[in-house]
């Protein structure tokens, strides 16, 4: 069962992702904080990370940078979820490859399709 880590501080979006991904047959871990997300990534080695850019303790870009800096975690694909108008911040870090973007409000179908695609199913 593929493991997905959701790092998102909006409790209802956490719930949304968890309910749908679990039903689709994934094992889901959720957290609202970047630090906790990094800890979970280290412990669980998820197959995919869904990452929000606005987190209470650190920016999603910092989480991404720290993931990419760790040998064991850098290969994990990351899908960025954002409600920000400007997404171009990512171009400041061209080497930080992401597996894709999901602009809020996103289509549920789009989320599930992207997840499937990244996990190579």
């Amino acid at each position: 069962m593929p493991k997905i880590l959701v790092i998102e501080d909006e409790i209802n979006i956490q719930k949304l992702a968890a309910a749908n991904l679990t039903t689709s047959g994934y094992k889901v871990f959720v957290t609202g904080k970047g630090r906790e997300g990094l800890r979970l990534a280290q412990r669980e080695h998820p197959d995919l990370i869904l990452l929000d850019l606005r987190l209470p303790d650190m920016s999603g870009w910092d989480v991404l940078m720290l993931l990419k800096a760790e040998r064991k975690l850098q290969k994990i694909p990351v899908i960025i979820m954002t409600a920000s108008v400007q997404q171009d911040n990512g171009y400041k870090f061209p080497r930080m490859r992401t597996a894709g973007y999901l602009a809020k409000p996103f289509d549920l179908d789009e989320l599930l399709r992207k997840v499937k695609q990244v996990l190579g199913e």
Partner: protein
Amino acid sequence: MPKKLLRDKKLNCLYTISTLVSRPDITIEKMLAEAVNAIPQGYQYPEITCTRITFHKLTFKTKNFRATPWKQAADITIDSKRIGAVEVYYLEPRPESDEGPFLKEERDQLNDIARQLGVGIKRRQAEEALQESEEKYRALVENAPNMVVVYQDGHFKYVNRAACNRLGWTYEELTSPSFGVVEKLVSEGYQHIVRENIAKRLRGEYVPPYEITLKTQDGSEFPVLVRGATISYGGKPANQVVFSDLTERIEAEKKARELQLLKEVDNLRHQLLSNVSHELRTPLTSIKGFVSTLLRPDAKWSEEEQRDFLETINQEADRLTLLINDLLDMSRIDAGALKLDKDYYHISEILESIGIRLAILTQYHRLDIKVPPELPRVFVDKMRIGQVLTNMVDNATKYSSGGSEITIEARLDKNEIIVSVADKGQGIPAELLDKVFDRFYQAENIVTGRKRGTGLGLSICRGIVQAHNGRLWVESKLGEGSKFSFSLPVTKGEGQVAQDSSH
């Protein structure tokens, strides 16, 4: 010719030359032109004597000048350097030429004349150099863009053109002893400073540059920087003062500040738009997401799950409504278009009107209300002040743990009523105290680890209180709690207490 007469002639000639060279306003050219004609008068036979003086490229000759073999000459020197010569010729051989063409005394006399001329030229040259430098300096000062004046004995001894032009008075008016420099030129509020500094400078004390405002002839005022020095003028100490007009600099600074402000406003607007968009998208994501979730053809949700999803949709729709209301309030406040439905209320009446909401909000806290009944009433919009109180209590519950105390207190302070809401929560770090009023700023909640609300609440509260001519502020101690307070003015006629007017 008797020796005595000859001696007189010689003395006369030398006297003429020496007066000539020491005449104060004479030029070198004039001095030599006159000297050349004076020299023959000192000789035994002036009628047949002619003279030539050369100085650099200049040559001066007597009218009857003709070079002859009967010649006598002396060099004119300055600091042992030859700069010219005086030559004397006899137009015909001397009648009794027993001692050669010239008398011995005449040779000495010519040397004396040449020496005198040398001294005279040297002095004139020094004087001319000095005059030239003085003229240069004067021209510099006269044409300087800054106002330059020399002040002595209570009036201006000199003012330059810039001063006349900028101040609007003529040179004669400004330098008149009866002008009254300080009274006429210095703006009222600065006159004592100027008088003090003039006195200081005359005592020889240093006065650092200072800024004052000057008045022009037509009464308009302008700012200047005053820099002065004590100089000697006509042998007595005087104030030489330079006024730099600061009008342009101050204008430019003002323009730069305005531009900066515009940029900040623009940035803020941009920030606001991006924040609003973010805040609107978040609940929309949940609503859209859960609707799609319920519509998923491949999933079968339990009744409990379906109910939960629908409740979430409901919640998020409420949040969206709240956000839109807040945005509307904010734009009304910004536009100064907040409509207030004012009447006289006692603070406890306002609390009563929001009693149920407060009870729900504080269900996990202990609410303590300290509102003395004898407080005067305030002239306010009950709904709006209720909104402020609700928001403050809501914040208090958000940032303090359940079971802790929340206190609403009202008291009279001079002619204001101060209402405060205090919690025993996490408190706010000093560096964030100002930030809590920023739009969309939401502090991290250490109790729930989550944020709630729109981030506009306190900004709106402040706007509402300000629309009532009050102030809203916060005091906080980290780890001990926060206390948000606002003031409402009590005006005359509202001094009656609530009980008196129960209808």
